């Protein structure tokens, strides 16, 4: 497995949106939603993509699906360059990569029966022949996600949020994809239902050998489900690590602040000591971000170098990458030399 080629490989990804203002649509700035992102996902693993608003995680997810234009960078899926696919390649890609959405209420067309919602990928890619086979396949998918087959003839409004999310997952599975991009799939669900859907995603991965890109902001959920995690801030990757490493030994100041800010469900004062809401300031806007490290305005360890130059992403230990001058041995020397 370690030597196998990754299923998805992203390098140098940039997605910039120009802002236009005024009567003549003058260029008023650039939203640098994604500004230099690189990562890979191995087959069968779940990669978490976390960060707060403005970090670019959703845009990255959309870029993977090729639903958002790239300003720069390359994306490889199963060895094939999909940065600018032609129409047939794009259609093939759309079979192998699917998305599960955050909003269980908006993601399903209220005028379509569940049968047709789940079966749409089958129709689009002509995967079944005849009504009987179509229906059978949809029923099988319903059962796979833990719903009763007879629900196929009902409409979305008859179901609860958790059930609708299951329908969305069934739809994503219909075309037998290899990669599923989950964009905050449990954020809009009640806590007790979240666990049902999380378990379902886990089981499906084991059973079908799926690979997930799991975009979320809830670090507890991410820790539960993901094997490796990418932490993003203001369009850039600040840290990548295995699950255990990230939560036990975060290196980037932002990751540390992020983990410290999560409320812990135990009132014991000793446990509460780990809660550290030290990070001040607001999450910045991706419009015309400042030069240097994206985090420097809020970083307690910021130096002159951090304000000037963006740090490189370096591997500080096996499978653990950090983009911070403090962990860059060359820079550290330079910084020390400047004192």
């Amino acid at each position, binding site marked *: 497995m370690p030597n196998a080629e990754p299923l998805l490989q992203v390098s140098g990804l940039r997605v910039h949106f120009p802002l236009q203002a005024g009567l003549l649509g003058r260029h008023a700035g650039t939203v640098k939603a994604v500004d230099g992102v690189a990562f890979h996902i191995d087959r069968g693993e779940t990669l978490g993509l976390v960060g*707060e*608003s403005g970090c670019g995680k959703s845009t990255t997810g959309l870029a993977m699906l090729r639903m958002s234009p790239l300003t720069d960078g390359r994306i490889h899926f199963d060895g094939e360059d999909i940065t600018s696919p032609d129409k047939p390649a794009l259609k093939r890609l759309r079979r192998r990569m699917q998305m599960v959405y955050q909003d269980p209420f908006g993601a399903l067309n209220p005028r379509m029966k569940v049968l047709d919602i789940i079966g749409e990928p089958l129709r689009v890619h002509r995967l079944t022949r005849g009504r009987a086979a179509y229906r059978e396949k949809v029923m099988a998918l319903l059962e796979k996600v833990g719903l009763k087959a007879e629900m196929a003839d009902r409409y979305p409004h008859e179901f*609860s*949020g*958790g*059930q609708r999310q299951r329908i969305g997952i069934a739809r994503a599975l219909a075309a037998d994809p290899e990669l599923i991009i989950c964009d905050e799939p449990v954020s809009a669900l*009640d*806590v*007790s*239902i*979240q*666990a*049902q859907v*999380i*378990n379902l995603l*886990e089981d499906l991965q084991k059973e079908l050998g799926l690979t997930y890109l799991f975009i979320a*902001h809830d*670090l*507890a*959920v991410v*820790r*539960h*489900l993901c094997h490796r995690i990418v932490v993003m801030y203001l369009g850039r990757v600040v840290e990548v690590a295995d*699950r*255990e490493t990230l*939560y036990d030994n975060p290196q980037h100041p932002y990751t540390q*602040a*992020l*983990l*410290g*800010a*999560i*409320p*812990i*469900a*135990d*009132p*014991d*004062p000793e*446990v*509460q000591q780990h*809660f550290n*809401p030290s*990070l*001040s300031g*607001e*999450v910045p806007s991706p419009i015309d971000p400042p030069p240097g490290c994206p985090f420097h305005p809020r970083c307690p360890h910021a130096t002159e170098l951090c304000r000037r130059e963006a740090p490189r992403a370096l591997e500080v230990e096996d499978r653990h990458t950090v983009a911070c001058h403090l962990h860059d041995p060359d820079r550290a020397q330079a910084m020390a030399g400047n004192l």
Partner: protein
Amino acid sequence: MNMKAHDVTRRTLLDVRNLHTVFEKDGNEVHAVNQVSFDVKEGEILAIVGESGSGKSITAMSLLRLIPSPPGRIIGGRVLFNDEDLLDLDDEQIRRLRGRDIAMIFQEPMTSLNPSLRIGRQLAEPLLVHGSVPKDQVRERCLELLRQVRLGDPEKRLDAYPHELSGGMRQRVMIAMGLACLPKLLIADEPTTALDVTVQAQILELLRDLVRANNSSMMLITHDLGVVARYADRINVMYAGRIVERGTAEEIFHHPKHPYTLGLMESMPRLDQAPGSRLTPIPGQPPDLSDPPPGCPFHPRCRFAEARCRSERPPLEQLTEHHWKACWVDTDAKR
């Protein structure tokens, strides 16, 4: 830090008895808040925890009589505040109370603020309405409030419009508005759910500090157990419009008794547990409140359910001074 001493001798600020609020839905009556009783003591932070459909927000709105009247109505109960039943007051009286004695802040800072009015104008409103500050000192007081909520550059913010501020900043303004007249009770309905986690942490710490500084009480409504664990002195757990368990934070988290509370604890991914361990979800869905199941509302999803649970609804029974539960089963024995 939670205050460990839940002194019974502390004065009761708010005493809610058998509150019952219903809504008309397609000809059916939905019992959104069903015979709910609890109290809030002076200087404490009480959390009301529940998921959607539990009735926690409607409870809060009922206290201040903010229920839209059709389709909802409060059909029973008493809400005693300063020895007055709020449900008995006329419109004028309750309006005077809102914002001055009891204030409420909401989840959506984007829609709670009027987008066409400047911040200063909106912030001044409670002060002007309740006449607690002479007109010439209003601006100064507004600046002071903004400083209290740790909003940088207050002069600039007063003249700004809501869309010029971020979500966290808007919520700070909401808090400033809520605390402007130094109310004895602040009701915060999911105040940080729409905010990023680092901002959420700042806002919650701020809320807690301000409430303690004013010696006010806070009713914190949320679904986030982590938030509750850190800030709440006492907790009400609500399900299907009723309180199913009530107790101190220590009791609820370390000795939960009601199967729903247990279920919530077990179904959450926790940072302080081993990663990748399997979650135990609560099976099923929350009930349809227009046609609730007989007996205990939780029984269809309860792994401890017995025959009695299906036919008789358990009342709240007291276990310790502050710990109550509404359940027929001794879950400790069965676990």
